[in-house]
């Protein structure tokens, strides 16, 4: 199909202005990296519904440019926004002892890698956990891409290690975490689409290029993995005895329920809900006692 027709199709699918921009970004990316597919091939894939990030193989996240690779979930701008805010809110001063960070459901490892990038050297020691091998592989690739070593490689730097783990078995996971914890910071963006959501997917995700297991939450209300997280953090040795900061991304209607779960779990001075830039309640944040 000629380029103009493809471009027109894309405009019909996503709007004229976004289509014009995406076309520009494809051209720019291809100019910078000739190993990418040629423009007609990119456009054809895009028109067929493949996400732009997979076609370009990259997704910006704060100051980072991370690799994006199907079927690992593409980081969303909402996540970028709260992760930046969290990085600033919790930022340690240079020379402070390293904080142990646990990122569950890590996917591309965007959240812990951002903390590693923004915090002073030697203040972030992150563990990224996922059940999907493809996610763990991408997380490790992104660590290399952002020059984030493992703890064994360079204990003086901000580090990231990956660990295979299944949140559906909190007891076993807690045992596996023991060698790395206890943690001062816990972050997670677990799959949260409910059963009802699953029946009416937005066209932008309906083609399911992304792993369904990265989107679809457990239990009918999609909150199953939050319940497992609540169980996990109650187990000894997971969170630091002095208290920890916890940030959980939620779907737009789920903040109240997840806030209650965290509030019931002991040890938080207060539990906040942060809105995203579009005005949706997006993150539940449990703050440690000062």
């Amino acid at each position, binding site marked *: 199909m000629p380029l103009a027709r493809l471009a027109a199709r894309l405009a019909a699918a996503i709007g004229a202005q976004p289509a014009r921009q995406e076309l520009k*970004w494809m051209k720019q990316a291809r100019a910078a990296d000739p190993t990418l597919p040629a423009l007609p091939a990119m456009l054809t894939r895009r028109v067929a519904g493949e996400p732009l990030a997979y076609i370009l193989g990259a997704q910006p996240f704060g100051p980072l440019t991370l690799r994006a690779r199907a079927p690992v979930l593409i980081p*969303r701008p909402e996540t970028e926004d709260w992760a930046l805010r969290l990085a600033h809110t919790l930022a340690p001063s240079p020379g402070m002892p390293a904080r142990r960070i646990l990122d569950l459901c890590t996917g591309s490892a965007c959240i812990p890698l951002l903390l590693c990038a923004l915090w002073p050297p030697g203040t972030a020691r992150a563990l990224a956990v996922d059940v999907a091998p493809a996610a763990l592989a991408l997380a490790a690739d992104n660590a290399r891409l952002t020059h984030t070593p493992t703890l064994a490689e360079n204990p003086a730097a901000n580090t990231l290690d990956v660990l295979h783990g299944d949140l559906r078995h909190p007891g076993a996971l807690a045992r596996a975490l023991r060698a790395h914890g206890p943690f001062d910071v816990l972050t997670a963006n677990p799959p949260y689409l409910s059963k009802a959501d699953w029946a009416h997917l937005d066209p932008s*995700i309906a083609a399911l290029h992304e792993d369904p297991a990265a*989107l679809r939450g457990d239990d009918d209300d999609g909150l199953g993995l939050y319940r497992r997280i609540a169980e996990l953090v109650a187990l000894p040795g997971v969170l630091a005895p002095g208290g920890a900061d916890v940030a959980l991304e939620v779907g737009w209607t789920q903040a109240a329920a997840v806030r209650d779960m965290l509030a019931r779990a002991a040890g938080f001075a207060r539990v906040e809900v942060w809105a995203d830039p579009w005005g949706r309640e997006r993150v539940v944040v449990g703050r440690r006692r000062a």
Partner: protein
Amino acid sequence: MLSLRQCLRRQCRSHVPTHRRRHAPPTSHRPHSDAAASLEQIERTHSRLLQALERSVRKSDPSQTDIAAAKQLKSAKPVHDAWDRYQRTKNALLETIPLLQDPEMADLAASESADLITDLDHQLTHVFPAILRPPSETAHLSALIELKSGVGGSEASLFLAEMLRMYTRVAHQNAWTPTILASNDSDNGGIKDAILEVKGNGAYDALRWESGVHRVQRVPATEASGRVHTSTVAAVVLPLSDDPPSDGKDDDLFKLDDVRIEVMRARGAGGQHVNKTESAVRLTHMPTGITVSMQDERSQHQNRRRAFQVLRARLMDQKIIREQAERRATRKNLVRTADRSEKIRTYNYPQDRITDHRLGKGNMAWNDIMEGDGLMEFVQSLQDKHNVEVLEDRFADLEC
């Protein structure tokens, strides 16, 4: 060969009788009065400059001994040095002038007096002005060039694209780093508006003269009748400092609390529920009402940084204009601020002529500017003109 000064010294020692001069053969071109006239002439031309320099020499008189005076003395050193050098050169000339009538030394004296006059002239036209002119406070700044197409529709957009290429090329020629921060394409392959960042020392000082309305006259490709159209592009050149972009903290130019940050499109449920690029941001600086929108990057973070960059540049621009206005109010400041709605330049394609309306003369050919390095010649002339104005200002300062 003996220099004239050495000859002169010998002459003094050997008591050459002064009457010898009277017997000197009359020279046809009378170099004696010529040289004297030249001296008189250049001193008359630069009389204000000389007075100004003399005044600043006197103001920083080293007879005071307190610390403030000593400090001032340090900064006054170049003034004193220049003044001494001028006086020495002038005295040498005054000593030389009588020798022009000495038959034995006339030739040597003529060539030396010519050199001395050239030297004096150089000091008056270059050395003194550079010393008296206050240093530019914006010399270290980079620039943002904002271009907007005006009258002339698609032809204006086509010309804007050409201007953007021109500035990009000029930036490379000057070892600055150009980056297009934003651009909106028009349907005909032109650009409706654009923001070009030009990073590097001196970029702002050189490019600030580009602020104003640029007018192009030519026959658009689409014009069947061959009639010449007039289109315009408005340029605003803003000062850009290299401070880290202030998207996290307060700034000397604004308080973060005064800036409203908005994302552009609605996103429905958002989060995992949708997967669309939503990177456009808009900043509103509430005290001034300045708004900046950025959407060119896939990264919202990057768009936000750039939006803050543009906001800073606009606020700094306002600050500079405000300070100029204040200075003008407190003393009679002659340096005028550019009026950005003013037509500054006409690019006439059929006549192959580009005219800068602020410079009386010295048109350029189309390719000199659009393909060559003619723009920097315009820039230099405009800078020279500005320097003269600044100097006039300084005179006014020293005179009161």
